[in-house]
Every structure is written in C-alpha cells, then in structure tokens.
C-alpha cells in the first residue's frame, strides 16, 4: 500500500473534529436546553419536559410571530424564485450589454450590511405610504432573497445542455414549451436549493426586519430577541428547536430528492 492512501495526517483530522464540534455545539446545546425541566442549565440533565414547548405555543405573541414569519416566507419564496428563473435564463442563455453589471447589482444585497438595507427600506416604506409591517417586510425580503435564489439557478443552468432544448425546437416545440418540458425539469436541484435558501433567509432575517416590524406585525427572530432580553427560561430554546427540526426535515428532503452534494455544488 502506498503511503498516500490517507490524504491527510491525524493532526488535520483532530483540527477538523474540533472545528466541527465548535460549529454544531450551539445547536446541540439548544436541543438539550429545550427539554430541560429547570430554567437554568444543569449537567447531567435532571429530567425531560415539554413545558417550554407548550409555553411557546401558548404564547400569543410567539403565535402571531410564527404565522407572520411563515406567511412572509411562503409569499416571498415563490415570488423570489419566479423572478430569479427568467433572470437566470437571460444571464446564462443570452448575450446583452450590461450583463456583468446586472449580475453584480443583483448580488449586491449580499454585501450591503443588513442594517443599512433595513433603514433604507424603512424610509422608503414610510415615504410611499405603505408604512411598516407585513407588506414592507415582504417587499424587503423579496429584494434580499433574490440573490440567494438566483445563484444556485445560474450555476445549475450553466450545467444544463442547451442542445437538448434546441433539439426540441427542431422537432417542432415552441420556445416556451421546449423550455418547460426539456430544461425546467433539469433545473430541479437549483430550484430546490434556491427555494430553501430564500425560505430560510426570509424566516431568519433579523437586521433588515428589525426596522420594519411594528406593534401589529412581528416575526420570530424579533420576538425571540425581545424575549431573551426580558426572560430567562428555555422558551426560546423550544422555539429554536422547532426551527431546527424544520431545517433537519428540509435537509433530509434535499438529500432524498437531489442529494446533499449536488445541492451544495449548486451554491
């Protein structure tokens, strides 16, 4: 056996292990704390309880925030994808002046600090009269999530053979029919990745949303932020566990439908 079958030393493995532990430890701790019968952390755990979950689901502020967050994400995700799809087609399949500039501009919300985007949308929403709240958050989140849904679609489309669509055209299919029946099915990984990123970013956003919520409309991260400041018990850990469970279900779905490797290769 040659000595390079194992591509790295034990030292590298240990460093990677430490890095992985550092990355996932907070998530594991939250899960542990959510079931803790005491409102402080004790090791080893003294028992298991679901009272923080019922606390979370019984809290009307959290309930409102939960429905707002889900509603915002449910509206924003399909709109963001519907805008990203034709844009990706134009960027990958067509030549036009200013294409690089357009792509750069579309990805810029990733670089602009969220606080600035948040205040900018606040002053815009106030000046055009829609005010703070649900509609303002939806608008801001469409802008903010667009690059997240666009990037995987552009990457995915680069890997799709254009000749197949051209063949369909030669066989008599119209341009729209050829796209929907030949190309679109091959964009499944990009669409799923884009949808997941847009959905998660819309639910989890804090910096932008913090400026756009009001007394009537709040979201989960904003409510959690307030709760953490006022109370010292695991209710927010229970909320976080619900979101983590949701994300784990998403990860399994992705793995089932497209495979994690492909999902990430499209980022």
């Amino acid at each position, binding site marked *: 056996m040659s000595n390079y079958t194992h591509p790295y030393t034990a030292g590298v493995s240990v460093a*990677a292990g430490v*890095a992985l532990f550092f990355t996932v430890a*907070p998530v594991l701790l939250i899960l542990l704390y959510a079931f803790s019968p005491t409102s402080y952390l004790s090791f080893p755990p003294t028992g298991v309880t679901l009272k923080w979950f019922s606390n979370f689901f019984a809290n009307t502020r959290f309930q409102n925030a939960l429905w707002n967050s889900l509603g915002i994400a449910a509206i924003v995700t399909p709109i963001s994808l519907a805008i990203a799809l034709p844009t990706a087609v134009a960027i990958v399949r067509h030549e036009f002046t200013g294409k690089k500039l*357009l792509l750069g501009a579309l990805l810029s919300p990733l670089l602009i600090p969220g606080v600035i985007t948040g205040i900018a949308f606040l002053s815009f929403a106030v000046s055009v009269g829609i005010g703070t709240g649900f509609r303002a958050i939806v608008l801001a989140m469409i802008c903010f999530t667009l690059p997240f849904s666009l990037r995987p679609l552009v990457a995915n489309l680069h890997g799709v053979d254009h000749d197949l669509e051209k063949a369909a055209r030669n066989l008599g299919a119209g341009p729209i029919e050829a796209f929907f029946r030949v190309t679109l099915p091959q964009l499944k990984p990009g669409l799923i990745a884009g949808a997941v990123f847009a959905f998660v970013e819309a639910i*989890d956003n804090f910096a932008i949303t913090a400026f756009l919520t009001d007394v009537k409309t709040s979201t989960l991260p904003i409510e959690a932020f307030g709760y953490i400041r006022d109370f010292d018990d695991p209710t927010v850990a229970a909320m976080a566990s619900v979101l983590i469970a949701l994300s784990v279900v998403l990860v399994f779905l992705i793995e089932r439908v497209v495979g994690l490797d492909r999902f990430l290769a499209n980022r």
Partner: protein
Amino acid sequence: MKRATPFLLITPALLVLGLFAVSLFSFIGISFLKQDPGGASFGGPLSLDNYAKAIGSEYVRHVAFQTFMLAVKVTALAILLGFPLAYVLARSPSPLVRNTILFGLVATFLSGGVTRAYAWMLILGNKGVVNSILSGLGLPALPLINNEFAVIVSVLNFAMPFFVLTLFGTLQAIPVSLEHAARNLGASRTRVFLEVTWPLALPGLVAASSLVFAIGLAAFLFPELLGGGKVHVSATSIYQKIQTDYDLPSAAALSVLFLALTFAVFAFFGLVQRSFARRVQKRQQAAPERLPQAQPA
C-alpha cells in the same frame, strides 16, 4: 424579437433592483439634510455637515476601526479552523465522515442566527455552561460574555458553514491525481500542500474569506446580544443613532461611510482574487511540463 427576449426576461429583476436602488438612494439623500432639534422631521438646506461631524468624531473612527478589526479576526480564525474541516470534507475516503460533516454544517446553517446567538449566551454566560464546569472543578469564573471575545466567537460560529461550504467546492474541484503525482515524485506531505493544494485553493479561499469578512463587517445581532453594550461596531452605532438619538440624517451619513468601507474592502478582495486566478491559470498551463500525466484516481 430575438433582441427583445433577454430584456423581457430580466424585467422583473430590474423592477426589484429599481425598488432597491430607489430605497437606497433616497436614504443616502437624507444624509445631506438635518434633523430638526427635538422634532421628528428633518429638512434642508443640503450640506455635508453630517459627514464632517462623523469623520471628525473620534468615536466614529474608533467604531469603524473596531468593526474592521472584528472582521479581520473572525476571518483569520475562520481560515485556521475552517480550512482543515473543508479539506477533510473534500478528501475523506469515508462517506460516513463526509455525510456527518455535511449534515452538521447544513443543519447548523439552516438553524439560523438568533438561535445560535442565544446558544452562545447560554454557553458563555456568567452562569453558563463553561463557567458552571469551571466552578464544578473549583476554578474561578471567567468573564466570557459582554465583551469582544463573545462577539468574535459567535460571529465566527455563524460564519463557519458559509466558509467551509464555499471552500469545499474549490477543494473538491482540485484533482486528487495532482496531489498523488507530487507524492509519487517524492514530495513530502507538507510540500505537496504548500506547492500543489494551497496555490490551487487560493481563489476559493479568497471567495470564502471575503464572504466571512462581509459577515464580520455587517455583524449586528451578535454584538447586540453578546456584546452587552460594550462592543460598538458600525451596525450597532447606526442602530443607536436611530433608536436612541432619533437622528436619521446622521444615521444615513454613517451608513454611507460604512458602505464605502465595505465596498473598498470588496474591491480589494476582487483584485486579489483576480490576480490569484491568473496565477493558477499560469500554473495549470505549466503543469503538464512539470508533472507526469497522472492517471485519474
């Protein structure tokens, strides 16, 4: 018709961009106005007073420097911790190891920022996990929260999945056969890493680092929750200008300066990335002469 197609396709995106641009520029416009003292409104005449005040303020310069340094520290630590993890993820022969890492990273990534900020409060707090372990061992408690340390640790933790998953793509694309060939020719592990892997990984490393740097510069939630009001960074100082001082024009001027800092940093990253990409291209062109053709693994 053919020429019109791409414009038809990008129209929705242009509308979104327009909305974004209008918001941003109207906000920037406010930075040239003045807050009415004691009032809720602001007005003319146009002036650069807010900028002069901001640039002249020692506090603002200190905050800008601290923000920049926070991003530098987080990025350096992300490279130190993230590189080995990305490397193992790209090269481990065991699917179990690769899937465990991938699953951990993706689940963490999807679990969100507030969740993890809260987790770090529980870990680093004065009665948190670390300090209760220390007191259990009869050791004195450490001040781990409400300081820059806590902010660095939590921002680093938030940035890790972004860093590792971005770098992983580049590492995976480097043919293992190149590393094998160098080893066959008698190069040591260290030399293979330094002369083959590292230069080929550089463009991806710069991309991953610039992403982490952006996260570090923009950090808002983590300094708010874990800084205990003692860690002042650009995002929190802008927020404060609005929430406490009700001074939107000053906040707008600070935001413009903050944006300028962000874009300057990214222009620099872009330059570095392009020069590395050129070097890698040269190397790859030269490679066939220097290395024997390796069999695909």
